[in-house]
């Protein structure tokens, strides 16, 4: 009996992306399904963040197609965790308010809003911090608050741009475990931009290597074989 495949949430076909008509990425083809954990690896300037911007609808393709599942087209079920968030420190805010801002563009009533925030905080390991000032959180907790702000949308597709860049190894692993749990329990598809190949070896189901203006994409087990690594990829950061 054939096992039904998970739905395709994002598909790139012969996609070219760039700025001012100058391509940064050419002929990218990959398919992201529900429950997959994609690691976007490559050196600085290889086009990883450009691809994420296109997936978020901020950048139109120069050529080819980038399509989202119809249920994601209003972006209410798409989450994003930026590399860092540095709000103006004059702004007073609680963890609850900060996380609740992730609901912009999502139609929920007050009760559902409270329930979603509580769920996101629990999953991000910040339960009980609702009324705490955001400014009293540690660096790791703030990063978890960023993840919670994305989770509050109940995303089916979650994009993360180097979310653990400024964290120590213990907190980094905590954030990755949180994301892995989300993938397994909720079937969320994750696209994570990173330089850290050792994280891909531990968590990735799929890998996309960005190098030379192109992308090599596929299952992690196949692409993370040492003999498959190009010079660029082999040079990405080890633990």
């Amino acid at each position: 009996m054939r096992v039904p495949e998970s739905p395709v949430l994002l598909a790139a076909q012969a996609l070219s992306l760039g700025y001012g008509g100058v391509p940064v990425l050419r002929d990218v083809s990959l398919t992201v399904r529900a429950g997959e954990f994609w690691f976007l690896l490559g050196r600085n300037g290889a086009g990883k963040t450009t691809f994420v911007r296109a997936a978020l609808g901020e950048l139109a393709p120069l050529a080819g197609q980038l399509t989202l599942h119809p249920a994601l087209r209003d972006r209410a079920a798409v989450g994003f965790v930026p590399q860092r968030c540095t709000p103006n420190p004059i702004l007073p805010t609680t963890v609850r308010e900060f996380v609740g801002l992730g609901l912009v563009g999502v139609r929920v009533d007050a009760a559902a809003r409270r329930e979603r925030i509580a769920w996101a905080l629990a999953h991000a390991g910040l339960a009980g911090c609702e009324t705490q000032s955001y400014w009293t959180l540690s660096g790791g907790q703030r990063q978890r608050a960023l993840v919670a702000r994305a989770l509050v949308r109940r995303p089916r597709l979650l994009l993360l741009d180097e979310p653990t860049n400024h964290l120590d190894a213990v907190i980094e692993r905590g954030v990755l475990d949180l994301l892995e749990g989300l993938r397994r329990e909720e079937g969320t598809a994750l696209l994570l931009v990173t330089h850290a190949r050792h994280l891909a070896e531990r968590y990735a189901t799929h890998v996309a290597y960005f190098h030379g203006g192109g992308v090599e994409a596929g299952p992690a087990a196949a692409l993370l074989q040492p003999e498959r690594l190009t010079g660029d990829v082999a040079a990405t950061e080890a633990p």
Partner: protein
Amino acid sequence: MIGEFAASWPLFHHAYLAGWLIAVLLALLGVLVVARNQIFIGAAVAQASTLGIAVGMWAGAVLGSEVLRGDHAHGALSLVGVLFAIAAALFTARDGGAGGTREAATGWVFLASASLAIIVLAHSPHGLEEIHHLLSSSIIGATPADVWTFAALAAVSLAVVAATRDRLLLLAFDPAMAAAVGMRPAWWGAALAVWLGLVMGLAMRATGLLYAFGNLVLPAIAAASLCRESRSLFWAAPAIALVCAVVGFILANHYDDPPGQMAVVVQAAAVAAAWAWRRAVVR
């Protein structure tokens, strides 16, 4: 003191009402200005509006146009001031515009506007007096039209903020996330700049730089020290501005001091008290 103020009401009620409405309106807008770290953009926009009014007066004198001269020039000069203010707000709101930083553009607009406004009217007998009047602020000349104009602007602003509060906050907290959820930060920034220019331009003509700039930044700063969440700033800042303006006008009437300046002094005292309260609570 209250009785004296009530006695002055028939003579100055248009000025008082316009002053209070401007306080509420600018404090509401000031929340966004302070939240987006654009305090000095407010000062630059106010100075650009002053330059616009100066250029309008100069043009009226040179061209002999009655539209820009004399007692009937209020509307036309306000329009020129608003246009200059909007242009300045748009110019300074752009990140990295004209090859420089936003701060550099803001400083350039402020200094160029302040200097040019003086130079343009340096040889006009009444021009410098008018510029001094604008810079030092006086609310006494407010008209019934000012009251209706600022009531309408305040009502529209309150409605817009009520409908888009979370979007505005997300834009202030994290423009990258705002873009990711489908907002267009550049479009929103331009819309807010036009709104700031419009309101500041009109407020400048009605009350002058000190009162307009004071209401734009001080109530929002005080509210930021008193509130636990940023969404509360949208009612706390206008409330603080209104209370300070009422208290300031009553004190000014009692001591026979300029009301605009007195209101700003009260606001500054409110900010100092809020900072002291914050420091005490944090400790």
